[in-house]
């Protein structure tokens, strides 16, 4: 079995209008090489489920998202994501489903467990129920009779995640302190594409970390992409930290349309190799 492919091949299997889940959290271990491949491929009208960071910013800026399902969009060290803000304030983002963080977890877990919904207390009393009028509550059938929010399963057509190591079979290994929800995204999806910093032989995985660090099991993975620096400019602990200076440049450019056009031209008009070269050139400039 060999699930290796490149980022463009992985994205070629997606189609416009799909529901796509994106792993990571905020500006942390986002599958940015795969997101950049989506930008190149011209996919449109996506429903995107994400604990949002610059993945959402880039896709929203390019007008690729029809419907966003999230609890927040942030760059972490820069609290507000400028492209997401602009898309919301201009009305360019057609539809938003805004959940509590724990509700999103319940929705993904329901999908992974093949359940129609899971109950939670989170959301009760808040405007999450007002702004999502399709949400329903359930009453406990037991004597407590407690009313809870029934979070519908967030079933995904495809999941995109980025991990530290993987083998060609699709086993994905997380060497950082936080797996985020990446394995859940994969289990909640009909297909899943996993990019990794380094592709290794299966036997090498146990040299990199304990068995429990193999987070994403191969049965839940469709394609494996070797993408060194594939989370850039978000963090990918322990391989690298967030590229804060690049993120600042991104956020500054995003605040101004002409600056953004120049940023796009410089960093996003070519393929992944061109991207890496442009990032290296910027770093060299800064160090000069």
């Amino acid at each position, binding site marked *: 079995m060999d699930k290796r492919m490149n980022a463009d091949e992985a994205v070629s299997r997606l189609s416009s209008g799909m529901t796509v889940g994106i792993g990571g*959290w905020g500006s942390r271990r986002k599958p940015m090489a795969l997101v950049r491949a989506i930008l190149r491929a011209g996919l449109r009208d996506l429903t995107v489920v994400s*604990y*949002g960071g610059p993945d959402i910013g880039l896709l929203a800026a390019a007008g690729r998202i029809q419907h966003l399902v*999230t*609890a*927040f*969009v*942030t760059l972490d060290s820069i*609290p*507000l994501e400028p492209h*997401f*803000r602009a898309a*919301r*304030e201009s*009305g360019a983002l057609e539809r938003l489903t*805004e*959940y*509590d*963080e*724990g*509700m999103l*977890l319940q929705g993904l877990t329901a999908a992974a467990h093949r359940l129609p919904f899971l109950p*939670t*207390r*989170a*959301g*009760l*009393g*808040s*405007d*999450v129920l*007002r*702004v999502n009028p399709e949400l329903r509550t359930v009453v406990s059938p037991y004597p*407590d*009779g*407690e*009313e809870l929010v029934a979070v519908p399963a967030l079933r995904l057509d495809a999941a995109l995640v980025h991990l530290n190591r993987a083998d060609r079979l699709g086993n994905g290994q997380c060497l*950082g*302190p*936080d*797996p*985020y*929800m990446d394995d*859940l995204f994969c289990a909640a999806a009909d297909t899943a594409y996993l990019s990794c910093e380094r592709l290794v032989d299966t036997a090498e995985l146990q040299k990199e970390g304990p068995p429990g660090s193999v987070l994403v099991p191969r049965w839940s993975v469709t394609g494996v992409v070797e993408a060194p620096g594939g989370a850039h400019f978000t963090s990918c602990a322990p391989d690298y930290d967030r590229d804060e200076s690049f993120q600042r440049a991104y956020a500054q450019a995003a605040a101004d349309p002409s600056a953004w056009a120049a940023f796009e031209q410089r960093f996003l008009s070519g393929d992944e190799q061109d991207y890496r070269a442009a990032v290296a050139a910027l770093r060299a400039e800064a160090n000069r």
Partner: protein
Amino acid sequence: MTTSTTGTEPGVSRAEYCVIACAEAWRGDGEVLAAAMGVVPTLGARLAKLTFEPDLLITDGEALLAADVPALGATPAAVEGALPYRKHLELVAMGHRHVMMGAGQLDRHGNQNISAIGDWSRPARQLLGVRGAPGNTVNNPTSYWIPRHSTRVFVTGRVDVVSGVGHGRLHGTAGRFQDLRRIVTDLAVLDFGGPERAIRLVSVHPGATVEQVVAATGFPLVLPDAVPSTREPSAEELRLIRDVLDPRGARDREVRG
């Protein structure tokens, strides 16, 4: 560097009174996670752990539970466990957690907004999103930290998007774990001790006045007959804040004066 003088204790900065007031929020909590958002609440939680509340659990700001009490931004010398986001959300549901959050808006019933300003469907200003605020406020003791006390935050009517749930919105069993504790601002300490659990002034930081607090609050603040000053830090507490927890003075960039 701390140079300004605002209180009766010479040399105590406003930010240091705020750290003390935040630390007090966790007094008596015992073995729970002190989930602090912002520089001053983080210092408050760590000061509480170093002094009167040693059993608190704290994180490194990321996914690790610190076994010691590191300085702001420092790596803990020892780690007692991991708390990745999924576990953290499970912990929210389990309840062993007292969170201190920020707020874009806060109203007199304690509703908090971090989602969006204006009409949610087309906001005048998009903020973060509701994040974990709905779940936090129905599951955990919740306090708030407002570094700039103003009528923009303490709004006259209701907040635009209820993210953190205030009083009067949870019915029957839904509110059984709701526990809104206190609000610390750069001017004062508030709680929910007013009629119908409305926001009430508890103390004013030395150097600030009751009139100032009332003017910076968009709703009628419940006032006690006499308003005490926020307590003074001890010499040992000041040493811990200045020399151990925040030698670079990040607190004075979050709160000036």
